[in-house]
């Protein structure tokens, strides 16, 4: 079975090499009404993130006096997966709740939360098409949306998933590779300092293989960081540099 995933020449089913990322396309500021929004595509996986805030806390009892409250909702559109996903309206399924919590905890470490106490930031991510690596795409989309909204960040948060076929570490799994038994290791990090914010794993790996897969995933994150930096620099230039400097008196 594993021979199908990795050919004798070392090519995966979609023709990529083991350490190759899928094509990335992204746009910032796609939703007009939101304070910040971004659309992120990694291969066939498509994520749309929107950010609203810092704003007044909706449930006063949950307000934190010394930092901002982060609410994160991750949802998958019914048309995002191969078979249409029927869900009870308004409720998240268990996986969506788990990913929402993981995202919230990841961004709590990256946003400078002490700069706006007693307020709330709402992050909403919709997966429009799921082909593996959805939580990583969600994290990358959220980083762009937060930058679009001008929310203070320590650094970009970039995420990429690693896996393993026949002992060969592979980067950026698609849905087929993920569901055919390869371990899935999503990793999120702050690229400038190399600090890892999130690592998850859903099956067993021997310890030395684990290290190789983790390092490959970290390398993949740095590659994504280079691409995201380019997009953000371009957008920032368009938005700010075309205007002269505003010197307040």
């Amino acid at each position, binding site marked *: 079975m594993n021979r199908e995933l990795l050919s004798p020449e070392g090519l995966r089913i979609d023709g990529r090499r083991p350490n190759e990322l899928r094509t990335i396309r992204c746009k910032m500021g796609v939703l007009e009404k939101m*304070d*910040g929004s971004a659309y992120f595509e990694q291969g066939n996986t498509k994520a749309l993130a929107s950010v609203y*805030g810092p704003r007044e806390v909706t449930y006063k009892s949950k307000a934190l006096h010394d930092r901002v409250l982060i609410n994160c909702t991750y949802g998958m559109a019914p048309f995002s997966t191969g078979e249409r996903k029927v869900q009870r309206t308004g409720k998240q399924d268990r996986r969506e709740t788990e990913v929402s919590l993981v995202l919230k905890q990841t961004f709590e470490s990256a946003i400078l939360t002490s700069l706006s106490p007693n307020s709330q930031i709402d992050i909403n991510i919709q997966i429009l098409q799921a082909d593996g690596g959805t939580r990583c795409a969600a994290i990358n989309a959220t980083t762009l949306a937060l930058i679009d*909204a001008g929310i203070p*960040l*320590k650094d970009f948060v970039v995420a990429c998933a690693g896996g393993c076929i026949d002992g060969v570490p592979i980067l950026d799994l698609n849905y087929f590779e993920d569901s055919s038994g390869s371990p899935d290791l999503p990793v999120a990090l702050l690229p400038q300092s190399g600090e890892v914010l999130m690592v998850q794993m859903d099956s067993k790996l021997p310890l030395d293989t684990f290290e190789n897969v983790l390092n490959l995933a970290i390398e993949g994150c740095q590659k994504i960081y280079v691409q995201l930096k380019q997009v953000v*620099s371009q957008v920032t230039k368009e*938005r700010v540099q075309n*205007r002269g400097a*505003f010197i307040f008196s």
Partner: protein
Amino acid sequence: EYGGLYLQSTLSAMEDKVDKVFLPGDTLINLQKAPNLKIRLGPGISQQQDEITVFKSGIIRHRSPDLYWIENNQKRYVPAVDDFVLGIIVDKHGGAGNTAGGWVVDIGSYQHASLSFFAFEGVTKKNIPKLKTGNVVYARVTVASKDMEPEIACVTVDGKTDCFGPLTGGYMFQCSLGLSRECFRTDSMILKTLGNYFPYEVAAGANGRIWVHSGECSHTILISNAILNSEFMNNSQIESMCKSLVARLSEK
């Protein structure tokens, strides 16, 4: 002398960073390499131990002698002292006899601002301004900190009314912070171009709100649309856009 040369080299180290794009997490300068550097950190820049890092994406601006800040374009307003803002009165607390009373004003930040009864020129307990819920006011932010609710006043630092106070008539709309800052400049291309076609009044707030008032309703609508369209246009595009909008208006 050695100290003087060193200081000059570190200042010029900052010079080539001005007007360049910086992204969250980028280090502006490492203090270990420039121990004599004294700079003031404005919005968007913070100090993490030995490094001066940027936490918003934008362009570094500099005002002599030593102030550096990040200029970016976002939609959400965070109050800062001495900003001129457009607020909408939401509530009033304290009656006429209560000296500590005032109005609760929505300025677009996550907490409403308070406008004291006495933050107007020449006001006494007997002649408090008659402002109602829904009125638009142009005010200056006097207190803004992350831990307290912001406070605004309709007087200048010297206590004069100047341009502040309630704005009657007209139409107020929201836009991005960058566009409203652009409209704040006296040499703004879009406002000058529109002024060639109609007489009108405009008030731009640092909080992403602009108020327009002109003689005709149709002119007000045209001016508001033109301002919103002009956000990412250059000067020649602005001129042609205004021309085509005015031509469509006079066709009727």
